[in-house]
């Protein structure tokens, strides 16, 4: 049954990757990175149980904790960017 969940997560990862490659705005790509991050947390937890080594949940925990730093960095980047150039281009 872990397999079913893993396959669903992997398919979702490929969909997120498609969104990251298609764009069209940079924020779509950031959204895809964020989605990919949560899916990685789920994938790591499921595979830890699939392998019968639940002590490796530490990895998933690490991602759950620091995954959103990237998105906050993007928010800060955009904020500083708009402060500097008043008319930024959002299209990729």
């Amino acid at each position: 049954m872990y397999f079913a969940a893993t396959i669903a997560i992997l398919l979702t990862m490929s969909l997120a990757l498609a969104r990251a490659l298609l764009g069209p705005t940079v924020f779509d790509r950031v959204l895809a990175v964020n989605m990919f991050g949560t899916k990685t947390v789920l994938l790591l937890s499921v595979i830890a149980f699939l392998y019968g080594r639940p002590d490796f949940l530490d990895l998933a925990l690490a991602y759950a904790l620091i995954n959103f730093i990237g998105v906050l960095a993007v928010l800060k980047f955009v904020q500083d960017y708009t402060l500097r150039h008043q008319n930024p281009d959002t299209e990729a």
Partner: protein
Amino acid sequence: MVTLFGVFLLTLLVITAIGIMRAQHLFVAVMLSGIFSLQMAAIFFILDAADVALTEAAVGAGVATVLMLGALALTDDRERGPKRHRWAPVAVVTLTTLMVIYATFDKPRLGDPSAPVHQHVAPWYLEETPRLIDVPNVVTAILASFRGYDTLGELFVIFTAGIGVLFLLTNPSKEGALSLLRSAEAEGLRHHLVPRIVGRLVVPFIVLFGLYVQFHGDYGPGGGFQAGALISAGFILYALLEGEGRALQVTPVRLLRGMIAGGALLFVGVGLAGMLLGGNFLDYSILADSPIAGQHLGILLVELGVGFTVTGTLLTVFHAFAAREQRS
């Protein structure tokens, strides 16, 4: 079945890499390399390398993206040059790829227990670690004790890279943290209430988890390298939320530089202590009454040194980029 998952992820990895190459907008390339790093971590985990996956998680998710964005803010976020189609590089690269693939047909299959790489020293490490060092995590035992010289060398590479960044980016004039506090851009994300509250809630847990990884590295996946990256990710989050000035008050530059040098010194000091007590350089067995207790003490101290230097270097680099940004 798990092999198929690995194959699927590897295919995604190739697609992502080609996407990175094709991206004109460097911001997009950075975002895609974030995805690339996540995929690498998942593949490492599927291939039984829990420690490596944890390192990739700690480095790739937090620090790498932030540093890249910091550099983009200082330079240019777009490729300006004309798109060139040079046939020579394409031909060379395709030819070499085919040659390397041809060469792989002689390689042992994935997971083949009789592959040469599993025959020589690796079984010895796996058998002797419980007897000689008695920590469950063989990776930590090799990293800190059996191949301590290697790790010392790597640590000095990180140390040197940190010093190099300081040379290149720190401004010689003494505009300290005080002027940073006043500038408007140094406020970070203080106006964004939700990220600020949640972030402040999460930061202590990141640091706590980093300490857990540091001191639990003998028993589970972890150690100084991972812990250093995690703890610096926590402080980088604090700096993003509260602004550079606040973050530099919490961890002053002087402290960070002390950590860079102190960690390396601690590692060398443990080695020298072994020599003074009559053993070899980095021989921990002498450090305590019984060899195993000595090994445990040595590994603890050495990992602590690694953690200090990695944390110090990554945070110093981050602050160097951020301070440059405010000045420009």
